[in-house]
């Protein structure tokens, strides 16, 4: 049973209109008399905030309906219809997308507000906010899309915006290259998505190509095609959500301004892959073997990224690898068919990761664009609000109870164990310890000990309120969001899981309370050990170590970038140069040149006839008419 709600279309429309208005204003005025930053800031925040309020309306509208009728649809218009393929510009709000909507718009709005402070005095202030609004609008299309095709529009939109924003400081070649990398790696993933969509359409698309029809027809998928669809879609998810082997773009995406990183890592873009897998849970749940691939890729990504994270020295890189690692957890969850646990981790992660990035942004802002944690230290008393909020974020990320990360991460690990995937659970617990270690390594190095760069320390100061207020709000979320999905063992009732139940296909296995408790204690213990090691090594001030052996390999990210470069980029470049040097001049160009040569020669030959004297033309006419008359008289007779 579904209901229609025409206002659904407005949710993505508000930020998109904002992007258009801001973009046009910026284009028209940036040369001569730039408009004030307050105007742009206000315009930029209107769209996301309005969308947030509409998301609340959607949420309460759904909440008022009986559980099995919680579906709002709106078909704005028929986008195109070719043969069997009828694609509506349709939107679907069900419990899953409404949850995504809430935190995407909420955190997106906070990041917009924060950006007003962070981007102050930037010369392309208007352009920045136009891109940000476009980014958010695309993400909302992705989340609200009623079918794979509309989702793909948003999917490509966020890819484009990430490119634009990562290479935002385009004076520096490195940033442009990072943007290119993100774009190209995402394109590889998108190919998987498009292929997956095509196979899906070929198999069961004839009965309608939106989620509801696909869900109704999913049972007729044969195992081979079903697994193929799952794996192809997962390639797309790998690209967008930075999983092995396509995770390489996300750490480089740090080249963009810090609020952009927060937006990419928390509210938009990287969560899209997890959301997509959960959206297609009606297919994934039927094919556990495909789910296993997803889960193992996820958990191995989590491990790999955690290893890299332990050795990084750029504060944003540490956070970037922690995102890759946490995304790995989410995929592990959706892989073992614990969709609600995965989505709940997306939800809590959005709060604490946005918080950590915006906090890191405050530190970078205060230290005048210093990002090396080995040049920071002792900032605790200089920036108390940033310190305390970031500490909450770090506790949540590490999974310390009772902060939000603990509940969502524990739910994932417990689901893996309860579904009988002990290997995944074991790696997951290990990664939890490593996460705690590198997160607190960062906190201790940045805020504790003695300042390592006295001059920068002396100039450091708390950023303005427009930046700290979003931090405080996010800190509240990061601390308490976990309560929403309190498991039964703490007297809760898994509210989020129940809320998501109509949207995702999952079954909860029954296991003893003791196992649950044991699993919980194990992860708490490992996290405590991780924090303790970090405390011992870094709390009292440590000097930058010279990496040797494994640490050096880890710091250099196992040389994956270099290997990819040698294996793919250079091969491709070599291939390209062979084509440009041999194939192009000899095969394709030669035809074109011959044709132009032929026309030149023919033109020269016929030029002689054009003498320029009117009477000669008259002769041509007479000859022509005579011949025509002759021909006609012959044919009549």
């Amino acid at each position: 049973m579904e209901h229609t709600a025409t206002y659904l279309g407005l949710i993505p429309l508000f930020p998109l209109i904002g992007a258009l208005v801001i973009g046009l204003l910026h284009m028209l005025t940036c040369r001569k008399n730039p408009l004030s930053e307050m105007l742009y800031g206000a315009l930029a925040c209107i769209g996301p905030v309005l969308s947030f309020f509409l998301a609340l309306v959607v949420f309460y509208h759904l909440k008022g309906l009986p559980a099995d009728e919680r579906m709002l649809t709106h078909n704005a218009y028929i986008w195109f219809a070719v043969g069997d393929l009828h694609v509506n510009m349709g939107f679907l709000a069900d419990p899953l997308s409404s949850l995504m909507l809430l935190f995407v718009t909420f955190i997106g709005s906070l990041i917009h507000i924060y950006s007003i402070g962070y981007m102050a005095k930037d010369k392309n202030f208007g352009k920045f906010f136009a891109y940000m609004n476009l980014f958010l609008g695309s993400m909302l299309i992705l989340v609200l899309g009623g079918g794979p095709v509309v989702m793909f529009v948003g999917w490509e939109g966020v890819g484009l915006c990430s490119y634009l924003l990562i290479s935002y400081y385009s004076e520096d070649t490195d940033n442009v290259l990072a943007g290119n990398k993100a774009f190209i790696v995402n394109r590889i993933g998108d190919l998987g998505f498009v292929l997956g969509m095509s196979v899906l359409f070929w198999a069961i698309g004839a009965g309608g190509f939106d989620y509801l029809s696909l869900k109704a027809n999913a049972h007729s998928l044969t195992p081979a095609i079903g697994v193929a669809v799952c794996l192809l879609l997962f390639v797309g998810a790998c690209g967008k959500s930075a999983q092995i082997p396509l995770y390489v773009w996300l750490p480089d995406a740090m080249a963009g301004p810090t609020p952009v990183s927060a937006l990419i890592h928390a509210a938009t873009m990287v969560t899209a892959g997890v959301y997509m897998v959960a959206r297609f849970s009606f297919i994934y749940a039927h094919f556990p073997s495909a789910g296993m691939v997803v889960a193992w890729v996820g958990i191995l990504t989590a491990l790999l990224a955690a290893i890299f994270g332990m050795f990084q020295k750029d504060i944003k890189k540490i956070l970037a690898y922690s995102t890759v690692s946490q995304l790995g957890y989410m995929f592990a969850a959706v892989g073992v068919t614990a969709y609600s646990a995965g989505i709940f981790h997306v939800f809590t992660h959005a709060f604490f990761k946005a918080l950590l990035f915006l906090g890191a942004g405050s530190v970078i802002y205060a230290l005048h664009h210093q990002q090396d944690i080995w040049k920071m230290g002792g900032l605790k008393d200089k920036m108390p609000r940033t310190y305390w909020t970031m500490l909450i974020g770090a506790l949540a990320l590490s999974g310390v109870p009772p902060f939000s990360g603990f509940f969502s991460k524990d739910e994932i690990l417990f689901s893996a164990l309860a579904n009988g995937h002990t290997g995944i659970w074991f790696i997951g617990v290990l990664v939890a310890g490593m996460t705690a270690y590198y997160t607190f390594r960062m906190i201790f190095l940045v805020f504790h000990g003695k300042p390592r760069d006295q001059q920068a320390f002396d100039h450091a100061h708390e950023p303005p309120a427009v930046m700290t207020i979003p931090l405080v709000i996010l800190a509240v979320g990061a601390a308490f969001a976990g309560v929403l999905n309190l498991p039964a063992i703490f007297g809760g009732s898994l509210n989020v899981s129940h809320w998501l139940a109509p949207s995702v296909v999952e079954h909860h296995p029954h296991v003893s309370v003791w196992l649950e408790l044991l699993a919980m204690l194990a992860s708490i213990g490992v996290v405590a050990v991780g924090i303790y090691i970090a405390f011992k090594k870094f709390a009292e001030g440590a000097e930058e170590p010279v990496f040797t052996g494994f640490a050096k390999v880890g710091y250099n990210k196992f040389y994956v970038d270099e290997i990819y470069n040698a294996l793919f980029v250079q091969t491709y470049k070599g291939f390209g140069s062979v084509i440009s040097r041999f194939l192009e001049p000899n095969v394709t160009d030669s035809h074109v040149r011959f044709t132009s040569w032929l026309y030149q020669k023919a033109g020269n030959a016929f030029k002689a006839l054009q003498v320029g004297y009117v009477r000669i033309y008259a002769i041509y006419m007479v000859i022509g008419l005579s011949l025509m008359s002759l021909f006609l008289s012959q044919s009549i007779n």
Partner: protein
Amino acid sequence: MIQNYLILSVILFSLGILGVISRRNVFTVFMSIELMLNAANLSFIAFSRLHESMDGQVLALLVMAVAAAEAALALAVVILLHKHKGKLDTNVFSLLKG
């Protein structure tokens, strides 16, 4: 009887063509064109008489009117050409030579 008129018409038309092709003075070329028009008129009227219908005569009158209008335009063009080059030799005006 009609043949005589038609033969005269053909002779006049051929003279006109010959004038257009061989003469270089703009005025002579122009007069030759008029001659061709009137050769056509002659055959129109001859056929009109043969078929005992007025159509040919109407057409002849129309051609005359057009010729008059054309003469006015052509004379204006000739004056401009003269102003431009100071000559009325058609060989001078050969800008379109390839």
